[in-house]
């Protein structure tokens, strides 16, 4: 019988967890001695399901892999299929811009949710209320654009499902303006709050040297001090024509650089600042958006066969690098679709490492600051 440590379970039913997963903690006093991640509570066997569905039937399925940020799935899957079909260069220009807008809107929504839940983990319930309320305006845009709030099924291989309505840019611009106004309020309440500094600085540090080796990607990697963004490194959609900053430590804009990077504080600030970048990207994309076709002509969906081959495509999601490996043997169904969710590494190996030695008061904020999305771990 172990006498010194006791065990705590953060999850699966616990407010301090980012979804339905579990961390098994061994705690001495209030310091975590050992952490073990336990997942599988959401395992639906997506990859198995995709092998038994046709190429088009998979589109409604993939978006369900990451619930807070579903569009990246459709995007990455479509890109991989386009790559196999040889459509990579043929996707209409307008579709690329619409995709950019959709992805960035979805990113903002996911960031608002991430920031809100993180603030909730720190115990300020005003910000989650505001942020999630504001997120709903983005949901409204999606509803007008795609007809659905969460699962849009909008980005298809070869373009987007419907053209963007003519009056939507006006609504988007209005929402963006509103969001910019609200962001100032968020800063006052939370991001410039002294207690946020006290709580988050130097908590859950991912060191810069280790970050890449550990497989950290996305905002978490940028918070550790690497200026890497898939949108910049391997541009997809219309990102090559759009000018934006890759927010990374130590360039934190108007916020003080208090820590040495890679901690919960920096991770949250990177997310906060990227919302502004996303707003700017959306504005540019709307301005530069050409008219024209929005979708390539599809073959008959039921007879659609994709040429054999293997393709890997990555996109930058709000949580990190999202990748799809699609393997085809020339049939009507994929042989194998493997999803690389960013939370797979963040949630399991990285979290288990950085939770060691953390205070139990900080466990929840570390998990929320990594922005772990359990469904993309277990698919």
């Amino acid at each position, binding site marked *: 019988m172990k006498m010194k440590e006791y065990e705590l379970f953060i999850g699966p039913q616990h407010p301090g967890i980012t979804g339905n997963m579990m961390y098994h903690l061994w705690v001495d006093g209030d310091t975590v001695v050992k952490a073990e991640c336990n997942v599988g509570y959401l395992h639906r066997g997506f990859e198995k399901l995709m092998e038994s569905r046709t190429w088009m039937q998979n589109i409604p399925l993939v978006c369900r892999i990451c619930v807070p940020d579903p569009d990246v799935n459709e995007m990455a899957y479509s890109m991989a299929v386009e790559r196999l079909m040889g459509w990579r260069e043929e996707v209409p220009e307008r579709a690329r811009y619409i995709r950019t807008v959709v992805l960035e809107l979805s990113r903002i929504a996911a960031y608002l949710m991430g920031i809100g839940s993180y603030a909730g983990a720190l115990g300020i319930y005003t910000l989650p209320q505001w942020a999630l309320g504001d997120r709903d305006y983005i949901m409204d845009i999606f509803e007008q654009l795609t007809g659905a709030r969460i699962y849009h099924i909008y980005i298809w291989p070869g373009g987007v499902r419907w053209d963007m309505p003519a009056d939507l840019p006006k609504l988007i611009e209005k929402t963006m303006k509103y969001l910019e106004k609200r962001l100032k309020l968020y800063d006052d309440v939370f991001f410039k709050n002294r207690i946020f500094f006290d709580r988050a600085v130097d908590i859950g540090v991912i060191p810069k040297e280790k970050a*890449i*080796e550990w*497989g950290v990607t996305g905002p978490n990697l940028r918070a550790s001090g690497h200026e890497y963004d898939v949108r910049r490194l391997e541009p997809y959609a219309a990102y090559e024509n759009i000018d934006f900053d890759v927010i990374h430590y130590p360039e934190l804009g108007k916020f003080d650089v208090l820590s040495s990077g890679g901690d919960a504080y920096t991770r949250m600030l990177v997310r906060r600042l990227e919302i502004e970048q996303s707003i700017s990207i959306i504005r540019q994309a709307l301005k530069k958006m050409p008219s024209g076709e929005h979708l390539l002509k599809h073959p008959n969906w039921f007879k659609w066969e994709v040429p054999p081959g293997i393709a890997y495509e990555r996109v930058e999601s709000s949580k990190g690098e999202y*990748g799809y490996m699609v393997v085809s043997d020339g049939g009507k169904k994929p042989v194998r679709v493997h999803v690389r969710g960013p939370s797979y590494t963040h949630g*399991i190996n990285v979290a288990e490492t950085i939770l060691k030695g953390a205070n139990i008061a900080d466990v929840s904020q570390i998990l929320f600051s990594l922005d772990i999305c359990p469904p993309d771990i277990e698919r």
Partner: protein
Amino acid sequence: MKAKEIIGRGEEVHGRLYVKVEKQEVRELIKTLKENKFQHFVMLSCIDWIDDGEFELVYHLWSYEYREHVMISTRIKREGEEMESLHDLFPQIETYEREIKEMYGVNFIGNERLTPFFLEGWPHMPPMRKDFDSKKFIKDVFESIPPVEDEDEGI
């Protein structure tokens, strides 16, 4: 392609370097690439080629400096063949190997954490294998369970 210069083989498939190797060479290759700025281990996939009777293990690596993606592919027999664990090279390989062990039944020698991962108390064949028929499984397992009827009131 820079990666091709470093390891001196492979072919370009859909914009990615695709290298087919024997399973003994994988470790050396990944080590070389890691030392040459291919430091981001993306993922480890397994593909079940049931007609060939083989599993294909694909190690994906990416270099932020060269902006290149490398897939190192090796094939092992579906039954009875094992693979060396590479979790000492990149810590997250441990988790991918855990998943593949559970989903395909491939054993990785040297990985001590091949414990049940997604599934709990799974008594059947690893489900991601192509010969696992999930429709039959559903019929046998979940659909055979009777609904609970309330005799008295029928709520």
